[in-house]
């Protein structure tokens, strides 16, 4: 059985992290990552209290500052890479806004039903291809950077990695807070945290959840400027697959707009676009999303779906997600779910296929 990854809703006002940790029977120190808080990284007193004063902050933000001091050459190269990525993001955004505009125009046109359906599918594919092309460019930039600079083997980083490895060896789990998602992702990548976090139960919320997913999707439907187009930022650490976490959905998404919700859902399918309000959570157990508490999926038809679990059908090429039978069943406790899920046979019907 894989180690669980628990994704939670925002924790600032009504934290449920402690409850989730207790539910999984986590015993021992918990490593925390608050690098998304940037300069406020050390201001983790409330989190420390909330988790019973057993947290150890990995201080990735401060460690990064130390790396930049010790290895200015790497810092310069990293800045250059980030500048290039920002340019790429700008140009991707230009293309994206045109594609989305086209998709919305087509949605509002009058034409034979079957033609509109075909064109709608075409819009979705165009968006997916654009997102994917952007991700390929980001990955290529980073691969070039890694090949040229081999950051994790450079002395300034390697010594921190050794320390991190030692701290993590003493910890039973890792909690990754939200904040600035690009800052957080960059720090996680710089220290090769995907490797260091392997095998640890993870608890992540808001930007933390986004950064450990496969794709980081930035979103806000009603910004004060611009069209409110969701955009792919980059690949995430990929520690939890098949999901696009959407924190603060009530503030950031027009959930009553079925066209937008449906488009979002289909654009990022087969991953589940999951809305995380306060006090919600779901656990990825390596095979399925289980023990869902209040998490809602943005559905392809523009609605919101709430289920206790979603399981995966198929692997690799042609992989798709289907909703498991027992839709709407009461959530089980995470621990019993994880035991039950061992050897889980994926949902067999096509009911509610996510695309």
């Amino acid at each position, binding site marked *: 059985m894989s180690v669980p990854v628990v994704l939670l809703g*925002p924790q*600032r*006002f009504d934290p449920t992290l402690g409850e989730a940790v207790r539910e999984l029977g986590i015993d021992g120190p918990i490593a925390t990552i608050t690098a*998304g808080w940037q*300069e*406020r990284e050390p201001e983790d007193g409330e989190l420390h209290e909330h988790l019973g004063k057993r947290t150890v902050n990995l201080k990735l933000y401060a460690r990064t500052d130390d790396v930049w001091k010790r290895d200015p050459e790497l810092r310069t190269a990293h800045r250059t890479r980030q500048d290039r990525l920002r340019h790429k993001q700008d140009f991707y955004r230009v293309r994206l806004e045109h594609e989305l505009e086209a998709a919305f125009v087509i949605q509002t046109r009058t034409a034979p039903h079957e033609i509109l359906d075909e064109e709608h599918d075409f819009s979705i594919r165009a968006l997916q291809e654009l997102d994917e092309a952007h991700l390929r460019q980001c990955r290529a930039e980073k691969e070039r950077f890694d090949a040229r600079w081999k950051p994790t083997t450079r002395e300034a980083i390697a010594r921190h990695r050794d320390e991190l490895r030692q701290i993590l060896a003493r910890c039973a789990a890792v909690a990754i807070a*939200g*904040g*600035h*998602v*690009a*800052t957080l992702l960059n720090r996680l990548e710089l220290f090769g945290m995907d490797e260091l976090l392997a095998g640890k139960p993870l608890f992540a919320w*808001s*930007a933390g959840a*986004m950064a450990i997913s496969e794709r980081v999707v*930035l*979103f*806000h439907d009603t*910004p*004060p*400027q611009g069209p409110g187009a969701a*955009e792919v930022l980059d690949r995430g650490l990929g520690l939890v697959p098949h999901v696009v976490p959407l*924190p*603060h959905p009530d503030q950031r998404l027009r959930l009553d707009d079925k066209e937008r919700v449906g488009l979002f859902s289909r654009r990022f399918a087969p991953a589940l676009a999951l809305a995380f309000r306060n006090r919600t959570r779901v656990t990825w157990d390596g095979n399925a999303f289980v023990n869902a508490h209040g998490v809602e999926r943005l559905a392809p038809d523009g609605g919101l779906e709430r289920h206790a679990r979603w399981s995966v059908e198929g692997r690799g090429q042609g992989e798709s997600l289907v909703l498991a039978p027992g839709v709407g069943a009461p959530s089980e406790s995470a621990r019993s779910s994880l035991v039950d899920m061992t050897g889980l046979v994926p949902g067999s019907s096509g009911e509610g296929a996510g695309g």
Partner: protein
Amino acid sequence: MKKRPSARPSGRSRSSAGGLSSPERALTASEEIDLFHGRLAIKELEENKPSWDAVNRFLASHSFPLVEGPSVTFVWRGEAEAVNLRHWVYGLESSQALTRIGGTDLWYLVVEIPERSRVEYKLEIHQNGGSRWIEDPLNPNRARDPFGANSVVHGLGYEIPSWSKHDPLSRPGHLEPFGFESKALGGQRRCLLYLPARFRRSRQYPLLVVHDGSDYLNYASMKTVLDNLIHRLEIPDCVVVFTDSPDRLREYANDANHAKFLTEELVPDLERRLPLIGRPHARALLGASFGGVASLSTAFRYPGFWGRLLLQSGSFAFTDIGKHNRRGPLFDRVVEFVNAFRRHPNALSEKVFVSCGVYESLIYENRSLVPLLQSTGMQVKFVESRDGHNWENWRDRLREGMSWLFPGPLMMIYE
């Protein structure tokens, strides 16, 4: 207050061109309103020759001014020789008489107000041979300004922006008074410094300098607006300095000393004392009315220094021919400056946000300014609103202006 829309309900024959097809008599304003929106409550009341009690019931069962679609009914009750609606909507008669319903002491006036409008007004009561202006006793909505307060009517669809109201979730920034000894202005100036919540010296911040700072704080809720927009990530954490002038009509009218005070004295001092980014793209000037002139003229005198300008209902008076300006001698130096800028417009800044109400006479000057600014290659955004020359209009545009000049990290932060 608006041009009649072309679409009308059925029941009247119309030519294909949209005009009336037969030589029928022109409709009175009241008839047109009725046609559009069915019976107005005040009309029903009037037709029923209301008793004292009926008037009481009518007043108790509605809120006033009574907004029914685009029709707004103003009422006043009492003995008077005449009652007038007084307002500052440019293009309309500034005084419009209310009608008394026979046999009662109830006065009313129906006015068409376009959707999403905000109109400030007073009632002028003529009694015993004299007259006085009062706030509408039946309307709880007030807008305060340095001269007192006005009643406010909200047209259909207008809402006070949520981001201008206190939000307990927003972390409050801090306001600190400070004095500044200005050689340019020959004396000390009192200012207020806004530091965002969670301000820290290890960060670098953009700077916004505000003209008529006390008025922006008192009448445009600017502290609350800043707290909320920062909390909502719509603008970045920023440092704001609220300045005031004891003689704004002189100092804000293209005054070299004022520009020198801001640019050569205040900003260098702030950049020494505070962790500011200190580059043009992170320096903004904000001002309304004459404060808009002060902002533009300061940037004009120091091209390239102020990379962001937020100009609200700027008093950008100019003359196309001759030197006479219709606004009087107070505007002479403004006209001189704007005429000079119109002759030789230059890219004095990088991004300029201009807003103006369509119910103020300055809409003409502001609309005229926009293509001029654009012609220089600066990025310009112009926003009109159905409002007048007042502080709440300027409050309502702050979100759009500030978030355009200083976009916040909305898409990047998920706490």
